[in-house]
């Protein structure tokens, strides 16, 4: 689903590459944790997969597409197959819960009849029934992240990329979010999650890819956060 082949990314003006000759293969339906210190290259990895950045060298395939050969006008189509969730939720404060989720469909031109039909389903999936008309500042952080997940998932993407989705949440709420992501993964969505949350990684026992100063130093099925454990 996501394949990096000898990918190097050197940002302009940087002394060392953010990613250095990284090769990773993530299969369809996998749940992968991306761990590593701040500045290790996790975010660069995710940005490259989203084609927000282009590699200095190497090849990247996402959802069957060679990103080096993908013309920029087709990039929006690629992104419709990738859902994104972030630490800071990125909701629109002037739109309701339902409005925020609907926005993702409105901007790609879906008819309003379809939007009205699918919104209740996805809100139920993430556990936000009854909150449709609340505004982001009226609900808790965990609920806000659920809205963001609903928005990322509403297009039924092949891949869900989550960049520290629990970074702003307390442990208890985080568990709820992880259960939700696990559920989405079980439906068949590939999930790639960058995180610093030791407890979650250790508890979930999923594949762990550790990046350090641009190198993949560990790629372990059913791994834990810290090396050697």
């Amino acid at each position: 689903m996501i394949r990096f082949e000898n990918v190097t990314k050197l940002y302009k003006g940087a002394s060392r590459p953010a990613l250095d000759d990284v090769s990773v293969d993530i299969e369809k339906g996998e749940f992968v944790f991306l761990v590593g210190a701040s500045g290790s290259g996790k975010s660069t990895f995710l940005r490259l997969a989203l084609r927000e950045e282009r590699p200095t060298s190497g090849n990247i395939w996402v959802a069957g597409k060679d990103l080096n050969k993908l013309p920029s006008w087709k990039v929006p189509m690629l992104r419709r197959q990738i859902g994104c969730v972030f630490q800071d939720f990125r909701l629109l404060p002037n739109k309701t819960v339902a409005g925020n989720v609907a926005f993702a469909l409105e901007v790609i031109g879906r008819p309003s009849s379809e939007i009205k039909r699918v919104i209740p389903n996805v809100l139920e999936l993430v556990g936000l029934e009854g909150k449709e008309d609340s505004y982001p500042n009226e609900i808790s952080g965990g609920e806000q992240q659920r809205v963001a997940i609903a928005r990322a998932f509403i297009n039924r993407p092949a891949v869900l990329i989550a960049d520290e989705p629990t970074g702003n949440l307390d442990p208890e709420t985080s568990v709820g979010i992880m259960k939700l992501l696990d559920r989405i993964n079980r439906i068949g969505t590939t999930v790639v999650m960058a995180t610093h949350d030791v407890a979650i990684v250790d508890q979930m026992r999923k594949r762990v890819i550790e990046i350090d100063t641009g190198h993949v130093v560990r790629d372990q099925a059913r791994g834990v956060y810290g090396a050697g454990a």
Partner: protein
Amino acid sequence: MRVGFVLQEVGTGLRRNVTLTVAVIITVAVSLSLFGASLLVRAQVGQMKDYWYDRVEVSIFLCGDISDAPSCSDGEVSKEEKDKIREELNNLKPLVETVYYESKSDALKRFREQFKDSPLADTASEDQMPESFRVKLSDPTKFAVIAAAFIDRSGVEDVRDQRASLERLFKALSGLQNLALVIAAVMLVVTGLLISNTMRVAAFSRRRETSIMRLVGASNWSIRFPFLVEAAFAAILGTAVAVGALAAGKYYLIDQTLASTFTFTTFIDWNALYAIIPILLATGIGLAVVAAGITLRKYLKV
């Protein structure tokens, strides 16, 4: 992209940047008013040229007994000389379209008509008036042919081209028109820069929305479209204000003031104004869309 959704986005954008939108409307209005005014002046000058060049004549003034030009040293023009001139003029057809002889009494009549409100009209006498041939040319620019043939000839005091005096007037008018065009061009550039800056602010103030739009896979076109519609909307309003200003100018300045004062010429009619509306609209919208498009390419990159 659904129409309702785009309109909603446009409405939000316009409300959020209302002061900048108003600034864009005003600068578009001012620059297009100037641009439109210079186009109307050009139409007016063109019309006056048609009107006057159709009426200009070459005048061949003949020597009277009070003339002191060197070619008049033999005194008043003789009948033979006059017949000779008339014959030669007739030989110059088709360049010479019509020849009209104006006698001293005709000249006095015309003089009295021109100065009927002045005491000069009463003091003038027939002896002071020159006889002349009034020649209308098929091509008014070929004055030199007539001048070469008749100037300095005995019995001819002077050959005068009315066109020459008109030319000075038209030169002054086209100078004014060029000045208005230059000012309009500068204003249009300023307007373009302001629109570009406004779009930058608009893109910045909606960076949250646009970043989400990019993430969920909205196309470039659908991200930029609401911004372009906003710019075009402001440009259309500005153009409407400019057209209103030009119509007011045409009504109050030309119809109410100039037309009743300067009866010797015709003025542009409303059709001249209607004719430039599409030009102004195209300039306004084109400028807005191009300026906004260039800015958005830079600030709303996928």
